[in-house]
């Protein structure tokens, strides 16, 4: 249920015209790192910003035996270390702590859910949480089915029809990966759907909580300047880069199962692509926005084996240097097979077969151990049809609009100008807008925004089932084609922008990658 704006007459005209209903947030996997590093600091910051509803509580559920006081002390330590606003406010923490609880038990033991149910009933009375529940599954996907089935069995899931008529609500947040291929993603979705209606499911992709990603909609649809040229008529190509300096960082076992394509491309990168390419939605309602995104995903030209050979390049990093320090090759990292064929880099030429983008290549790439951490969307416009200027380099650089998602979130527009002087010498300059400089750097973390949206029932920045399945439907053939290949991915030295074959991918089209 999306809370209706303005239903409360005193909310009319307030800057914050939406408020979350009172609720209890139940975190499964509360002993894990995600809870300590991200979730509790995010919830605490929401409390600091006065964004939490008046009746509110957090319940941790995990296997480890600990008292509520121990759980609270651990969370306090986590908030002290990882909150963006420090130090902890003692007056506020005392109140916040009163709403923290812990239920110990195994996820497959029905008695855990009985204890949880009794605890939530107590909170309804003592904290005024009004039987509204937000479950956060901060656990591996292998646990999802067990938890979901037990929640249903214990009658801890509200009837979605009753929700729509103002009854208590239940929502569930799940973290990626949403399956490991189309089939498993369908199974996972079916399993969740056995207990929760799609309107109750919030699939989190923390990229969508980033300020610049949200700003993409504002930039495109609140400015009259860009949308008319946002099409095949004016755009030559689009390049989307998700680059990381880091290697697998202790996640070797996980990464051997996924590779960068499933870890980054299938979710974050295709989400960025769909936001870039989507048509204007009829409204900003969750379904209107997601309808447009899913249309883009359905328009992606499916990869046939020949196309995969021509349009997809994978790579695996070898030894090299990052910021002057020598780093190990992928196969030398802990928990990585010595003959691993897992890709740490992928680049693709993707075509969006629709009226707006027909013929415009979207070059997307993601990789580990690249020279710098950067995520950006670069719209490269077409060359001028005729050059009046005898530029020394033989031509005029095309305009490029770059949306930097991280770091240094912002938007830059490259254009050509004349250097001062008697001669007509052309030079590229950039109009550069940076969030940190213009609005200060203390913007909310992605998890803050996303948790608050889930509490409010706004699913716009969460991924819908059909989006996830379309993403897998696009990626599956690529993964399948690689599965049959005997050879390992081409190597690239750590600290470079990927294998040479990735440059060839664009060179064949007479283009080249940007160096972000």
């Amino acid at each position, binding site marked *: 249920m999306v809370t209706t704006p303005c239903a409360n007459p*005193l*909310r009319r005209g307030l800057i914050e015209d939406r408020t979350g209903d009172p609720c209890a947030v139940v975190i499964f996997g509360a002993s894990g790192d995600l809870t300590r590093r991200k979730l509790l600091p995010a919830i605490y910051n929401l409390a600091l910003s006065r964004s939490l509803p008046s009746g509110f509580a957090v319940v941790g559920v995990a296997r480890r035996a600990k008292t509520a006081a121990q759980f609270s002390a651990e969370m306090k330590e986590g908030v002290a270390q990882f909150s963006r606003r420090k130090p902890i406010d003692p007056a506020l923490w005392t*109140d916040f702590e009163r709403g923290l609880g812990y239920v110990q038990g195994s996820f497959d033991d029905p008695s855990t859910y009985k204890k949880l149910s009794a605890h939530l009933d107590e909170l309804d009375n*003592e904290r005024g949480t009004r039987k509204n529940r937000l479950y956060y599954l901060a656990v591996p996907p292998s646990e999802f089915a067990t938890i979901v089935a037990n929640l249903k069995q214990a009658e801890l899931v509200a009837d979605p029809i009753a929700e729509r008529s103002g009854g208590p609500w239940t929502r569930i947040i799940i973290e990626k990966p949403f399956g490991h291929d189309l089939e498993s993603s369908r199974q996972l979705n079916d399993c969740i759907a056995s207990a929760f209606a799609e309107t109750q499911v919030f699939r989190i992709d923390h990229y969508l909580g980033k300020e610049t990603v949200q700003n993409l909609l504002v930039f495109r649809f609140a400015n009259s300047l860009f949308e008319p040229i946002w099409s095949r008529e004016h755009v030559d190509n689009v390049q989307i880069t998700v680059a990381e300096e880091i290697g697998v960082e202790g996640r070797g076992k996980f990464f051997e199962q996924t590779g960068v394509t499933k870890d980054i491309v299938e979710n974050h990168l295709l989400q960025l692509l769909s936001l870039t390419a989507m048509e204007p939605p009829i409204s900003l309602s969750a379904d209107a926005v997601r309808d447009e995104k899913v249309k883009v995903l359905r328009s992606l030209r499916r990869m046939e084996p020949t196309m995969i050979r021509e349009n997809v390049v994978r790579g695996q990093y070898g030894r090299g240097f990052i910021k002057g320090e020598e780093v190990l090759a992928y196969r030398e990292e802990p928990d990585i097979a010595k003959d691993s064929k897992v890709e740490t880099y992928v680049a693709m030429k993707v075509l969006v077969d629709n009226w707006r983008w027909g013929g415009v290549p979207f070059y997307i790439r993601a990789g580990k151990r690249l020279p710098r951490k950067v995520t950006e969307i670069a719209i490269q416009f077409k060359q001028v049809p005729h050059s009046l200027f005898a530029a020394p380099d033989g031509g005029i650089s095309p305009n490029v609009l770059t949306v930097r998602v991280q770091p240094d979130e912002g938007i830059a527009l490259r254009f050509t100008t004349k250097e001062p002087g008697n001669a007509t010498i052309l030079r590229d300059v950039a109009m550069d807008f940076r969030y940190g400089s213009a609005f200060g750097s203390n913007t909310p973390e992605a998890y803050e925004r996303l948790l608050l949206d889930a509490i409010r029932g706004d699913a716009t920045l969460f991924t819908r089932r059909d989006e996830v399945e379309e993403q897998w439907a696009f990626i599956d053939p690529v993964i399948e084609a690689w599965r049959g290949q005997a050879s390992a991915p081409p190597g690239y030295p750590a600290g470079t922008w990927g294998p040479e074959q990735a440059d060839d991918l664009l060179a064949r089209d007479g283009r080249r990658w940007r160096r972000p």
Partner: protein
Amino acid sequence: MSSVTTMPGAPESGGKASNLITRIENELRELWKPPEDPTAPPLSRVCTMNIEVVAPTKELLERYTPVIDEVTASIPARAILASIEPDSAAEEVTGSATVVCSLAGGKKICSERISLGFHGNASARAASAIEAFLVPEIPTALVWLGRVHTDDPVFEDLARNTSRIILDSEYTSISSVIHVAAWARSQRHAPEISDLAWTRIAAWQELLARFFDDAETRPLASKITRIVLKQAGETGARIGPESALMLGWIGTRLGWKTSRLAGALRFKREDGAAVTIELDAVPRPKGVAPHTLAALMIEAGDDPHAPALRGSIERELASGLTDQANTTPDADVIDWKCTRAGGAEIEQRIRLGPNKAAKWLERTLHRPLRDVAFAESVAFAEHIVEDGLTVS
């Protein structure tokens, strides 16, 4: 953001206004030259708006300068600060330029501060000199310190070319805000009016709205029977702008009407039932501004003697940290309580935003330009102030 550092240009000097403008522009160019020391951290010049600040005395302007420096550390802007002293014996314009930097992510983010002083007859040319420094194509906010008169040509000229005029009804009056708003409406490109007192009560509005967020309590918003407001100060004092604006906001959101009985002000709900309004005083701790809103209690329901909902929002005045000047720039704590008939009491402790002039101005600049609720609430509040609701 780290603390603010400044790089002053040439010391303040006087002369003809046009020469002064040229000199200050040259100074700014000098200040933005790349540093000769190649190891010096690069400066990033950022400007997202013009902020004009006008004060009646140099002393007041100097007191307000650190406030503006703090604001431009988070909202990079060109700040043009001007004192206008028409009664001064001298007839001159003085001025200087300074670059004000704060460190963000290892980079120095810098704004420009131009300080001007207009003395004697030169005061009449203040608006044209100030406007010469405006950066084009970005919004301009005019912060007017002190009393405001809409027939003052300097105010009129500056206000006409701004997107937002910022006043503080605590220091002018609600009536002044109304007059400025009426003047603005008569202009072809009307600037929007903002009041720092309105920003200060924003958190109170949100906290009051919370009582009626729940589907069960929502209908009780139209059944408020009693409101008690408490403000810092003495018994017998008049209602302060924060309390008056708060009442104005509640009244306009809920469709209340005011009427008089034997000269005394009465409040009636949309359904015609009376609402009791009480205004009390609480002791004003040192460093707390007079009339600061300290508490708000409400009762709602069908039976005034057995309310279905009781709510209170109580600010622990000066509960924030106290600095050396004995003021409390840190945020105060608020206790929010809600009791429903037959239900448990829900309680929350909430920290207000930092209680600093710079933060109020910063938040005001972040608010949407057009605020219909403000215009309506001010008009309603004016009745309350005119009728002289006093602290019992």
